[in-house]
């Protein structure tokens, strides 16, 4: 049996995990803040230019939509060291090696 509140909780948690700033910005968890800022600005410029490749980012659960708001939010999250620590911890497990092609 499924509970409505549960389903909402799980959807929110899933969205939170897959909107990990390191996945959104496609940078390694160990990346320096300068590299993160540079990558963020590059992605914002590409999104503004309407480049198709910038509109999606890879996750272990398939590509997700990348928006300028998501990119800005990701950069802001990673500027805070405490938040970065948590995102980094999850990103190490959700990086490109976390799923193996069948």
């Amino acid at each position, binding site marked *: *049996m*499924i*509970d*409505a*509140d*549960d*389903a909402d*909780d*799980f*959807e929110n*948690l*899933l969205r939170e*995990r*897959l909107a990990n700033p390191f996945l959104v910005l496609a940078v390694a968890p160990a990346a320096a803040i300068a590299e993160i800022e540079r990558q963020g600005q590059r992605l914002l410029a590409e999104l503004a230019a309407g480049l198709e490749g910038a509109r999606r980012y890879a996750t*272990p*659960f398939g590509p997700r939509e990348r928006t300028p708001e998501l990119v800005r939010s990701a950069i802001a999250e990673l500027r805070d*060291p*405490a938040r*970065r*620590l*948590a995102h*980094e*911890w*999850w990103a*190490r*497990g*959700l990086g490109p*090696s*976390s*799923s*193996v*092609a*069948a």
Partner: protein
Amino acid sequence: MTTFGATIPSQLRARAPQSRDADLVGRAGARAAVRLLIWLALWATVLRNIGASVGTWAAGSLGVCVTFLVAVVIPMWLFVVFPSWLAFRFAAPRGMRRLALAACWMSPLVRLRDLPSIAAFLDVVADRPGTLSGFPTQLPVDAWTALAAALQADRRRSFALAARIVDALAHLPTGARFPWLARVHGVEALVISAFERRDWPATTRYARLGQGRLIALLALVARATRGEEAPPSSLWTRWLAAPLRRTTLPLVRALAWRGRTAPASADPAAPPHATVHARHVAMLEAAARHEEIRSEDVMALAAAWQPAIDDAALAATHARALGLGVRDGAARAQALREQVLDELALLLVRAQGEQPRAPAHPFAETLARRARETEVARIKALLAAFDADRVGPSLHPLAAWERWLALRAAWERAEQSVGRAALATLWRTGVRDRLWGYCCAVSHVHGAHAAWAAHAMFDWLADRAEYVGDMVAVLANRENARIAQSLAR
């Protein structure tokens, strides 16, 4: 409060529901008699015309079989099956609501009292705005309106509510009405809704409730798509027998071809996840998609998490926190562990199957305790809505029933983990009187309109009372269920 009727509010005693029900029964009886007379007149005329015209045309040349076919089988089909076919296969899909209802009125498979519910169901199928949202006071709660509510919930992506309604319909008490037409056409609409969005677990779950050729085909297609065995011959046979052949042909052809060329494998599209983080998110995704999760899978995931969140791993995270310049790094690292445990407990609450009694690893006890606390807290929170004094005519019996479904789901889940002693305490300290009073109030305020739901609720209460050993409540609620059932007939 030990008997049915103990909670009748004083303002409702002046005009007891039983007297209103008696009026309704009298009017319904007159309508049923008129309906029967019209049937007899119409079908007698049809039968006479068939007999006269075919008899004159054939002039005694027909054999026994053809005579039997013309004189018995075809008229029987016309009388019994044709009206419902016309209603649900022809008129309803084309938006001809009045014709569909007229055909239902003509069908001997449809009870007169079911017509308002069928009308509500057809409105939901046709996506008419405002259907069920205002809960017309005369609309009873029964299998048709329950299916209408489930379909509406499914289309509005309230999958949890749809699942709860389907689960309740699958576990109706003995004697509760679930008309054959509702099982065929009502459940079919629900199955198609899940099928159209390619939600195979929901398609399979809904299909278990119904009957009919299309439901059987869609259930088999859903199972085949999920990797279960489906012989091409079965697929083609069911496809040939089912309606909507043109729509389902591409999918059936693809599945039959796959069945011939390669053995089915379990969910070939899903990649295996290498890290525990990815496995964790995969399980969150499964929960968000309303797929079934097993308790043992959650416990296995918790065991896999252990080396990643034990003290050594947290020390490494603390070291990284120092490197990043995070203040209070130890607490931050600990918060990550708590976050993982909270999410695992949430998954465990959502999981199917009993939780293991003997903890297999150190986290298991923590997880089981958190899951139990969450479940008890949820029951207590839901119980706040069950106030008998607030049950009035404005609370539609369907809404009252849906409210009860939420508590039923929480309670039955708690039965798998919280334990009999804790649930017995919970039962005696609040659940019994509050829920009992609520069910009595719903039954008395709405009378026959809520009888079907009241039957299910009282029967469930009696079962729960039996589980916790409350024999007084068992006897009283069995009697209440019996009275409600007789009202629902």
